[in-house]
């Protein structure tokens, strides 16, 4: 099945095989955006809720991502507590705590989630995290659950096929335009918390992609899940391409991607202007059209501190906002015939290219219409 004519689209809408989503995402909460740099808006506040999966898993482990994926982190037994709005991970247990994680445990108020990092960086003993609800919880095991919180598009529709009909976006904040939004399906990720280690670090786990199984069209980008320390290493991935050829390398010419020092959470660390800057994706070896799996990452020098996430994503479409305060709209049926497909389980998130120095917490609002048949 598929939508194969305009009449079929009309029929599908009539049959309620249609979904409209109004969304909002805020840019970086603590740092102004830099002109010429790409950002991942998924971890920003807004609606849908912030993506908390980035960086939540064990170091270097493969994690598939779908709209229903959950990952968890825990304190060691009886080693978590909450006093006021501060959660303390006295002795860490498994995986990594991230902003947006929902906390559960005996006596923890329902709906409690991490709003920002304190001294915690995800897995350090004694690390603190700020939460949204003031309460007192004595020492016990506390679990954090992360969700990707991608854009909702009506749920799974198989055997029908879902397509995007139109999209809009708007921002009225000062210097929020020009900008370009790119909708991507984030398919998998690898946490890299060992950012002081140089040389090749191998990824672990069986890499079975939940969508785009061959890797065709999938590309990788890298963002911090915890603000990075000083360091400007080059970055090289060793990957298997969409044809199944292994040992493909990020090309060293004209330059390997170079990380930006002290990159904030959500920024694509090798994007920007100047030599060694690319964006939003890590360049592929000549002739490659996608990434099926990634075997290792190589940082040429330490980044001192922080934590990174390598994400495999499928670009869906781009939408430029040309002017501050003027709504941008795109019809993907008539105006730009493409009707990009959205697969069941898609984890839809926005990447953003900042065309100017965009203020902290700049808000973007828009809508997305899809139909299936």
């Amino acid at each position, binding site marked *: 099945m598929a939508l194969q004519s*305009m*009449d079929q*689209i*009309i*029929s599908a*809408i*009539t*049959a*309620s095989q*249609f*979904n*409209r989503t*109004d*969304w*909002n995402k*805020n840019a970086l*909460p603590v740092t102004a955006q830099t002109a010429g740099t790409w950002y991942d808006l998924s971890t920003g*506040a*807004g*609606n*849908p*809720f912030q993506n908390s999966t980035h960086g939540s898993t064990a170091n270097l482990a493969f994690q598939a991502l779908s709209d229903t994926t959950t990952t968890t982190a825990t304190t060691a037994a009886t080693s978590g507590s909450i006093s006021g709005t501060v959660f303390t991970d006295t002795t860490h247990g498994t995986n990594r705590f991230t902003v*947006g994680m*929902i906390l559960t445990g005996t006596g923890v*108020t*329902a*709906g409690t*989630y991490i709003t920002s990092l304190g001294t915690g960086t995800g897995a350090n003993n004694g690390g603190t995290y700020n939460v*949204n*609800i003031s309460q007192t919880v004595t020492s016990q095991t506390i679990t954090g659950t992360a*969700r990707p*919180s991608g854009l*909702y598009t009506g749920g799974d529709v198989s055997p029908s096929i879902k397509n995007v*009909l*139109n999209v*809009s976006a*708007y*921002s*009225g*904040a000062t210097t929020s335009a020009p900008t370009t939004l790119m909708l991507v399906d984030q398919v998998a990720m690898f946490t890299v918390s060992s950012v002081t280690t140089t040389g090749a670090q191998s990824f672990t786990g069986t890499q079975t992609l939940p969508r785009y199984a061959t890797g065709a069209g999938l590309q990788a980008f890298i963002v911090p899940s915890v603000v990075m320390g000083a360091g400007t290493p080059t970055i090289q991935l060793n990957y298997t391409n969409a044809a199944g050829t292994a040992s493909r390398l990020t090309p060293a010419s004209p330059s390997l991607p170079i990380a930006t020092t002290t990159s904030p959470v959500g920024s694509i660390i090798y994007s920007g202007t100047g030599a060694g800057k690319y964006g939003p994706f890590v360049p592929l070896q000549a002739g490659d059209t996608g990434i099926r799996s990634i075997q290792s990452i190589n940082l040429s020098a330490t980044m001192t501190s922080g934590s990174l996430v390598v994400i495999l994503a499928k670009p869906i479409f781009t939408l430029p906002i040309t002017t*501050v*305060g*003027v*709504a941008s*709209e795109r*019809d993907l*049926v*008539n*105006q730009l015939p493409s009707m990009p497909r959205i697969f069941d389980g898609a984890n839809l998130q926005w990447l953003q290219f900042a065309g100017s120095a965009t203020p*902290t*917490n*700049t*808000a*973007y*609002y828009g*809508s997305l*219409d899809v*139909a299936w048949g």
Partner: protein
Amino acid sequence: MAIRSYKDLVDAEENGQTFFGSFRKNLNAVTGVNSWFDVTLSPGNPLPFYYASTPLIGAPMGQAVNGGMPHNPPVENLGYKTYLKTLNITQGGVTSISTGPMILMDYLFYYPFIDTGTTDEQFLDNTASLTRYTSGQGVSVMAVQMAGLLGSGNPTFQFTYTNQNGELKTSPRQTCGTATLVGNLATANGGGFSGSASNYPFLILCPEDTGIRSVQSVTFDSPDIGLLAFVLVKPIEQIALREVSSTAERTPVIDFFDLPVIADNAYLSILMNSGLSNISNGPYIGTIQTVWG
């Protein structure tokens, strides 16, 4: 029966299954920039609706009782569905207009007179319930200022609600802006741009929630001055003005390809974003055409 093709659409109109209505809303205040403004409270045609009834008691809204932008009478009992065919809007007579998006919405239900001056938990009466989109799937909630806030220090609040699956949830903390204008949304006006989600007209729901069925209570973290109405809405279609005195036209099936369905007895009104300009006093005049089949 239903419209399932272009031919069905044309046939329905040729058979007279169409309604052409007009509206004129006079904004009676000067908004701030980057503000979402609910024209439901503005005078003109249709008459304004002030969300004024017994405090904290939820009440459904519908065309038959409350009015709203004119559209055709119910047709579902005839086996038809109503669709939005065209929506046009022109701003006339002033030089400062909304350049942000506008959203045509079905206003479903409201809770009046939520007092921002108390930190007590205010419990809302849900004896009545949604009469359209009854599960709450795709339904959003917005906080409309019935009496302007002070907004000092960007007041915050949380609310408890029932989501689209019937689960009781406590919302993330919401942040108000500093614009103090009747009709402005409390959490989505220019003064709140430093707060999270401040350009989004609707209140933020918990992770994984895709709609809201009812609101149970509201609790402010610190007292302010003002009154809010919580309004449950279903967004239908957007349209955007880009120039003064130039008509914005939206023919969904042609230029946005979504042919939105309008439920029987929908209360239609518009939420407007001021964009970079203050929206000054003046009329917004438009037409709406529906077709059913």
